[in-house]
């Protein structure tokens, strides 16, 4: 089963009631249950790991759409870090 399929399905089918109940809060959803609602991503991550360890949990605002990621160089396969060398120093 793909990651978070159950959680994403739950969010999709309960979006309106979750929006009504939690507004713009960031939700932690595990299975078909909201296990927490938070103002910041930092709080949500801390609580999610405290409650669920390293298990997969959905963390998202109910109003947010799925993230669409664009990286032309990556998708075109023209990135190359071979033989990369650099030296770093504090300034």
């Amino acid at each position: 089963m793909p990651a978070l399929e159950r959680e994403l399905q739950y969010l999709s089918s309960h979006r309106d009631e979750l929006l009504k109940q939690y507004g713009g809060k960031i939700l932690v959803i595990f299975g078909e249950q909201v296990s927490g609602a938070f103002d910041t991503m930092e709080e949500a991550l801390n609580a999610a790991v405290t409650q669920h360890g390293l298990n997969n949990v959905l963390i998202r605002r109910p109003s947010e759409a799925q993230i669409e990621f664009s990286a032309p160089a990556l998708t075109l396969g023209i990135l190359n870090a071979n033989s990369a060398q650099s030296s770093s120093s504090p300034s």
Partner: protein
Amino acid sequence: MPILHSQAVAQAKTQDGKTVNVHPAIALQMRDPTLQVTVTIEQNAGQALVSQGKPVPTPRTGWALIDTGASNTCIDDKVANELGLPVIDVGTMLSATHEKVPCNIYPVLITTPIVNLNSPRTMGAALAAQGLLVLIGRDVLANCNLFYNGPTGQFTLSI
């Protein structure tokens, strides 16, 4: 304010097979701004593990490329799995040639000897084939100053 300052270095072979250093300006142009980084679980998630006495995933080291063309930061999907990072969302990768590809999202902390970059929503992607562990995109750069000094082959990243 932590400041990471990096000088590009590269070598090339002459026609008679002799290895020579390339001018830093050319080196930076050839291979983009790259730096060595270590990745583990995001800071706040890591603190939750520590406070419960649980082990934090063992950090992994590799190359990161700063890609101002990438909307989001990526981690090599295989490494994220091996670290046992939790999937916290699923996004889609847009491509000019393929349909949208679903990808897992992980909470990641990217560390350098000087700068720590918290990346709570890091996309999983196949980066290892390109010799990369991380692609630093504009979501992380939104909290940074990046100075690309082409003529000297240097770049500076600060938060």
